[in-house]
């Protein structure tokens, strides 16, 4: 695929991620922070987010598996995940976390388990999307092109 085609694919794919609510303006903020002095900034932050999130999802699974669920602990983990997903612009994960927290407050185990499934689903979806996006960007750069950020006005 030639560079121009790859760039057009990148623009369309990025736009779709925003339109479908996977990402919000905070992700654009991250992209704007990337520059020549730190050309891998977005990849680094996103990788940290993946590590952090998977650790939290494991902690949540364990916490909800206990005989007597410590809802304060569960809420603390969800709060963290809500925070980091908000910081990178993973809007659907953030929204799923907001719903999750309300059930933690109600101390509703069954609802919390359903929320955990929902959060996991949203997380793995956005992880897949971000990995695809990053791969596209790396292909563009490897082919000698640049990521056309300026095309993203909508």
């Amino acid at each position, binding site marked *: 695929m030639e560079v121009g085609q790859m760039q057009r694919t990148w623009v369309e794919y990025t736009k779709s991620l925003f339109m479908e609510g996977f990402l919000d303006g*905070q992700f654009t*903020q*991250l992209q*704007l*922070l990337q*520059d020549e002095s*730190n050309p891998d*900034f977005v990849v*680094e*932050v996103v990788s*940290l*987010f993946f590590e*952090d999130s998977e650790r939290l999802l494991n902690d949540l699974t364990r916490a909800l598996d206990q005989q007597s669920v410590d809802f304060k602990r569960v809420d*603390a983990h969800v*709060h*963290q995940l*809500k*925070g*980091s997903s*908000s*910081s*990178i612009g993973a809007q659907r994960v953030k929204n799923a976390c907001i719903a999750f927290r309300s059930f933690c407050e109600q101390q509703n185990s069954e609802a919390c388990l359903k929320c955990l499934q929902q959060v996991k689903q949203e997380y793995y979806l956005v992880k897949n999307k971000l990995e695809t996006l990053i791969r596209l960007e790396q292909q563009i750069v490897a082919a000698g092109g640049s990521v056309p*950020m*300026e095309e*993203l*006005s909508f």
Partner: protein
Amino acid sequence: MEEEEEQQKHEQASACDSNGTPIHVLAVDDCFVDRKIVGKLLEKASFKVTSADSGKKALEILGFSQDKVEKSSYNDQKIDIILTDYCMPEMNGYDLLMAVKGNSNVKSIPVVIISSEYDPQRISRCLANGAEDFLRKPLQHKDLQKLRSYVKPSAPVPKTGTKRKVMLELIPESGTAETRPRIAGVAVA
């Protein structure tokens, strides 16, 4: 996009004190993702950044030493402003604020709290106890200009035509931050 870049350039030019030295921010947050993002946001706007992953670490950086035999030198890293997350385990942002404002060696360093949650009681309590401001996460470019405005100049500068002037008239001779009255929810410009 162009507007954002223009705003960034403006802020790059302004993140220095009156001597042209970059403002040194101590950024405290237990979340690695947030530390990285806030650190980059500040650096890109030409602030100097030191990061800490806990209130305890922040106090160590400020010179609070557990070793009471050896006299620690407070703020030898010359922190100009502390930007701390509220929700942190063990020592939260409020606890850090109180520790800083309770120590005469460092209490003049402005403290700004950031949080992902809007809790009016939490905000009032922080502002009433000496926090300069309480900002919402995620931090935006427009918030950085506020940080610049909270950094005290090295020589006292009379302020006119702002809310701060009214506040100054009520401060006793010693100028201690904790006696300055605060209106909850009002950030001094």
